[in-house]
């Protein structure tokens, strides 16, 4: 059975069908890319699947169980993590703490134990600190371990979000334009990073505009246009598809 199934998902904002009758499924351990021109509905699709928006119709199933309409924080409990296109970093905290937030569910959050400085809590917190420092190193952020989030450049923050998502130890990782706003070198690094993560067995769903990256990384690609599914298949199939080319580049007159 596929790990994640999206079944005829739609969302309408007033008269706009931002996502219109989209269905696909993905298997565990694969890298699945969602591409399409700007405004095609890619981020909206992400927001629907990660339950930040409620769909007008359709269903989403994880391991066969419906997760449509669940509260977003509960998806984290099911092992779904994501990053944001417009960066959602807790600017008021340290870089390391941002990553530690990702591991929130793995720690004891009981108010009373916290207030009374229960010994177990401190010990595990310190262990988590170590683990998250290691995680920051693995995404190339060793220089920022002691830094505050508000002192970090854009490229580093993009990687910080990925580190935070990884701290959840997710089964599925949704990456929303991880290379947006990055230069060629940085994009290459992200490319390698995503490859490393995929190699550990995490299922990845990727929204990206950088075609080289998409071609390198993906096992399967979904093309959206005006909220509708335009094409789906392997990189070769999709990128040679004349409709896809027309949607991106326009037809010649």
């Amino acid at each position, binding site marked *: 059975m596929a790990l994640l199934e999206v079944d005829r998902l739609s969302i309408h904002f007033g008269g706009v069908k931002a996502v219109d009758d989209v269905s696909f499924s993905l298997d565990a351990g694969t890298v699945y890319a969602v591409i399409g021109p700007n405004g095609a509905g890619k*981020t909206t699709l992400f*927001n629907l699947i990660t339950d*930040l928006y409620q769909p007008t119709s359709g269903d989403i199933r994880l391991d066969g169980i419906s997760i449509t309409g669940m509260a977003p924080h509960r998806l984290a409990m099911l092992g779904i993590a994501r990053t*944001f296109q*417009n960066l959602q970093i807790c600017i008021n905290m340290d870089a390391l703490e941002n990553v530690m937030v990702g591991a929130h569910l793995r720690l004891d959050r009981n108010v009373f134990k916290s207030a009374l400085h229960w010994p177990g809590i401190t010990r595990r917190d310190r262990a988590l600190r170590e683990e998250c420092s290691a995680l920051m190193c693995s995404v190339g952020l060793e220089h920022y371990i002691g830094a505050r989030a508000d002192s970090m450049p854009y490229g580093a923050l993009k990687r910080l979000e990925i580190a935070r998502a990884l701290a959840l130890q997710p089964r599925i990782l949704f990456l929303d334009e991880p290379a947006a706003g990055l230069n060629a070198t940085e994009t290459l690094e992200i490319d390698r990073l995503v490859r490393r993560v995929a190699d550990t067995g995490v299922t990845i769903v990727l929204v990206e505009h950088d075609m080289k990256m998409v071609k390198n990384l993906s096992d399967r690609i979904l093309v959206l246009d005006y909220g509708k599914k335009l094409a789906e298949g392997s990189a070769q199939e999709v990128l040679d598809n004349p409709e896809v080319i027309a949607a991106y580049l326009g037809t010649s007159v």
Partner: protein
Amino acid sequence: MDLQLAQFLQFLFSGVTVGATYALAALGFTLIYNASHVINFAQGEFIMLGGMLSVFFSQAGLPMPLALGLAIVVPALVGMALEKLAIEPVMGAETVTLIIITIGASLVIRGLVQVWLGKGTFSLPAFSGEKPILFLGATLMPQSLWVLGVSALVVLALGYFFKYTLYGKAMLATSYNRGAAQLVGIHTGGVLLVSFALSASVGALGGVLLTPITLTSYDTGILLGLKGFVGAVVGGLGNGLGAVIGGLLVGVMEAMGAGYISSAYKDAIPFILILFILFFLPRGILGGQSTDRV
């Protein structure tokens, strides 16, 4: 039967009268909110200033029309000062910061009035006499007609201004999208200044009109402002027509509640109303603001 109708009308009249002031206050909130996304907690103080200054100027010997005129112009100036000193420096800050700074401004205004004009309660003579008008068994004070009439004129004038004049449309454009407005050459800083001035004058006018009926003192601003805000939210924050309807509604419900249920809790009614609206109809009756993009 007749007595019940008379009583109902009585409550309705007093409710609509005070509701007109709330409506003007609500309009003030809406003007500023649309221009800057700031809730001006000092709005109520403009209403108070209108009342207090009209008393002060007329007692200082100025002819009534001049006194009233000044009582509207001076708050406008205060409003502009507020914009320059309190809002501009913190433009774009967190909501908490903005709320607190306008609260601070309201304290400064109220404190200064308390120091310079004292803690007394004052009144103004009614504009056209005190002879009550009888209507279906209920009495209506002529001053109420002044309140309703002038308020309606102001609302119509503002509506015309925003819909049909170039400057009014420029202000609306700024409220929808500040950046775009700047790009087409609209002087958005000026727009902000004007909205504060307008909002303050409108509020002050309400205060001036109401003073012969409800009297005035240095601390009437708080409740009036808050109830005006309730009216703005009830009608849908950011919606001008909603503000007017909301304000009137708050006034009427307050009067009805005071008359039929309990006059001790009269002042609590608008707040119960706002909690109700915020929980069940947060966009207000006519619909308010939009969602964020993630």
